[in-house]
């Protein structure tokens, strides 16, 4: 039962903390931002600010070397990585 619950949590929240944290932070920050900005500013720019935050969340959920300098050695592969062996 605990194994099922653990797997269900991974299914819903995913394998990294970056995505649930990023999505939650984006939504929670959007509410005060909405009220701080002058009337109409949020309506026109808010959607694109949100899309940018989602792209940032995706970037931070990927291995760190995607944000680092080029040609640095690859990070430790995730446990599901194979060296491309076909089943």
């Amino acid at each position, binding site marked *: 039962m605990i*194994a*099922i619950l653990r*797997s*269900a949590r991974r*299914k*819903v*929240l*995913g*394998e*990294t903390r970056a*995505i*649930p944290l*990023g*999505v*939650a932070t*984006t*939504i929670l920050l*959007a*509410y005060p931002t*909405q009220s701080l900005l002058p009337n109409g500013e*949020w*309506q*026109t*720019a*808010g*959607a694109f*600010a*949100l*899309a940018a935050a*989602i*792209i940032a*969340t*995706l*970037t931070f*959920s*990927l*291995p760190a*070397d*995607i944000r*680092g300098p*080029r*040609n*640095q*050695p*690859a990070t430790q*592969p*995730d446990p*599901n*990585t*194979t*060296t*491309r062996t*076909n*089943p």
Partner: protein
Amino acid sequence: MTLTAAAGASAVELLEALAIVLAVGVTRGFRDALTGALAAAIGVLTLCLVLGPALRAGAGISVLRVIVGGALLLFGLEWLRKGVLRVAGRRRRASSYHEFVEARDAATALPRVAAGRDWAARGLAFQGVFLEGLEVGLIVLALGAAPGHLEPALLGAAVALALVAGAGFALREPLQRLPETQIKLGMGIALTAFGTYFTAEGLRAHWPLSELAPLYLACLFAATAWLAVQRLERTAPAPEAT
């Protein structure tokens, strides 16, 4: 577009559930595999029937859109992340055939029963179908919770179920040939686009071209995924053929 997204996302998850049921059926007997799968399907359906109306009754339209958008973003971004890693060669490719082989090995390792009910096989089939079904249920609930989207979301899931059930008769070889990595990456893009669209609408921000926004958002996320793959491929060890 809701119908396509619901059908696509449901189909890939149902394929994985099918692979598990087939594996348990082949090694332990189809009667117990189908019993476990049926119990899981009833469990997921019950959960959705309880959650769906509670969600619709308990929240205003703006809050509902944010909840729906947030749920779609959780699934979409995770699929997108995995898709990027798979295409860049950083993660094993998605394969229902592989799922089939793993479940078959797990079923073979279970203790045998001489006669009567095989609870271990039922449990294995239940667990696999329940977890994959839960994902389908939550995605369909989220896509269908937006006003006017329930029918296409349910229809999409029904189409996916019919297609996957039909594929169940053909089995194994087609499971090996499906480009699941690309399909899952595409579904991740679609779910993330819908999630971003609904969340912004719920937060009272407006998209230019309103209803067409999911389309250009999908292009934006596809471009981001492509750039991420290029970047990861440059920093990764030389990939071997897949």
